[in-house]
């Protein structure tokens, strides 16, 4: 609970940082970085999120419980994505148990 009043100066600097980050993410998008484009866009988005959460939403001044809760939310979302992508990502990798049995010649995909 933040009875702590944040000076306007802090809010304005955070606002400017957010604007700068938005400008960078848009300009970086026009540069061909291949796969890194998505990575850069995501890191900028995460940093903007952290700025908004810590300052605008006063999490920096609030109790550890709130911080744990936000972390739990983000971790649970990562769990959902990680396990789902673990399936969809590795579904078509054919199983070639070298030592365990006779490997088939034509890899049988789509287990």
């Amino acid at each position, binding site marked *: 609970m933040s009875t702590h009043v944040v000076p306007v100066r802090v809010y304005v600097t955070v606002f400017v940082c957010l604007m700068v980050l938005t400008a960078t993410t848009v300009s970086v998008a026009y540069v061909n970085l291949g796969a890194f484009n998505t990575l850069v866009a995501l890191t900028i988005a995460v940093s903007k999120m952290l700025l908004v959460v810590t300052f605008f939403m006063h999490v920096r001044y609030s109790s550890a419980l709130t911080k744990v809760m936000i972390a*739990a939310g983000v971790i649970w979302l990562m769990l959902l994505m990680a396990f*789902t992508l*673990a*399936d*969809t990502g*590795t579904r078509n990798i054919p199983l070639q148990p070298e030592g365990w049995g006779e490997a088939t010649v034509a890899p049988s995909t789509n*287990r």
Partner: protein
Amino acid sequence: MSAALAEAPPETRVHYLNADYGIKSWLLTTDHKRIALLYLASITLMFFVGGFMAVLMRIHLIEPAGALVHPDTFNKLFTMHGVSMIFFFLIPSIPAVLGNFLVPLMVGAKDLAFPRINLLSWYVFIVGAALTLTAIVSGGVDTGWTFYTPYSTTYANSQVMLTALGVFVSGFSSILTGLNFIVTIHKMRAPGLTWFRMPLFLWAIYATSIIQVLGTPVVAIAIFLVGLERLFHVGIFDPAVGGDPILFQHLFWFYSHPAVYIMILPGMGVISEIITCFSRKKVFGYHFVAFSSMAIAVISFLVWGHHMFVTGMSVYAALIFSVLSFLVAIPSAIKVFNWTATLYQGSISYQAPMLYALGFIGLFTMGGLTGLFLASLATDVHLNGTYFIVAHFHYIMVGGAVMAYLGGIHFWWPKITGRMYPDTWARLAAAIVFIGFNLTFFPQFMLGYLGMPRRYATYPAEFQVLNVMSSAGASILGLGYLIPLIYLVWSIRYGPIAPANPWRAKGLEWETSSPPPTQNFDVPPVVREGAYAYGPPGSELEGAHD
């Protein structure tokens, strides 16, 4: 402290039941105790709607060619049995009825943190139930309670939209209840009530609320997408247009496996309360049982893949899900061992709640261990989609959650209504339920191993013997459930007046009168001893160290 007041017969003393009269006083109440009774009435209705369909199915399955209904109707029966039992009875049962009534009392507060959101959660539940009942009446839905695509999105032509909307809406009731409990347990504990002095029922409710808050939105979005798919045929889950039906199963089971822990965890909390009270001993390994509830809440989110081992999902992901599914059994095993150890050197009495609790431990052990068959890859290939699965989850849901719910209702009945129920009838009903349950579902394990698939309206003749035994058991079980309905309703008016603490139990809810006043405690309670301080006086004063 309020001894004099409590002795006055309930009629003359003002308590939450006679503080106010009239329909408005019930429909617009923000008193958590009245909302608990509103929930009790609505889920009992949905329980008997689902139970009626179960009886029809068991009668139909007596003959291999189906004795009662057309296969299409049978498909609707098992779907609506699933939807009404899971979403409208099992998930709200203990949290919304016993949780709503007891959390503020056990925490020592006047009410939940957000009383009006609590009433809102009941109305959202009623809207969801009304939508589902209209779907049932106006043609029913035949997709199975799992709404698997592409059948539910492109091929089913029954009331899928209406049921999906009903389930979507009722999900928010579960979220709001969970949210209310977490905030209440965190912020409104009585002075002196540290986390490790809380009753284990509160630990179980807290773990359940975490699952409700973190899991339910994902099934809401999954069913929301099924609805959009049916409206716009966008092809998210339709393979013809490039969608992936297995992706729906991921989103669905991400919630629906933790949902089975939403159904059983509160039951475990109730069992901890009953075992300690009726053996008059502090629970064995309090910290272990408390942390095992939290461990279940976390690990239950990592295991949903075991529902999809045969869908052709990636073998590597199946490996990960299999090992995690084995590990999620460990906390439940710890709980069972600790309950059994609590009975050692106790002074055990056998009223109805204790019979339900002991029945729970036995049947839950059986149910939990049969889960290992389904966590292991090799046997799951044979058993997936057969009656073995039906038997497994009924042992957990009916043998576990419903037995614990009945035990809890009997245990706190004097506190809720101020009246005692007739114990001889209750013990008889508990015995009938136990026998009927085993006769109904044990044959289904054998049917599953023999290979009879589930959701079959007609089946080959060689399975008939076991199906007839199961149907016979179902009629006994059905009878067993009707008896408590009768004598509990009878006891509200004619039951003997219950003292404030009929079982001489420990816990804040037993220190106020039965039924409690609207503000729960005449004098705000202060906690000085640990949970379940049944030991010799002075031995467990502090209660926080062991």
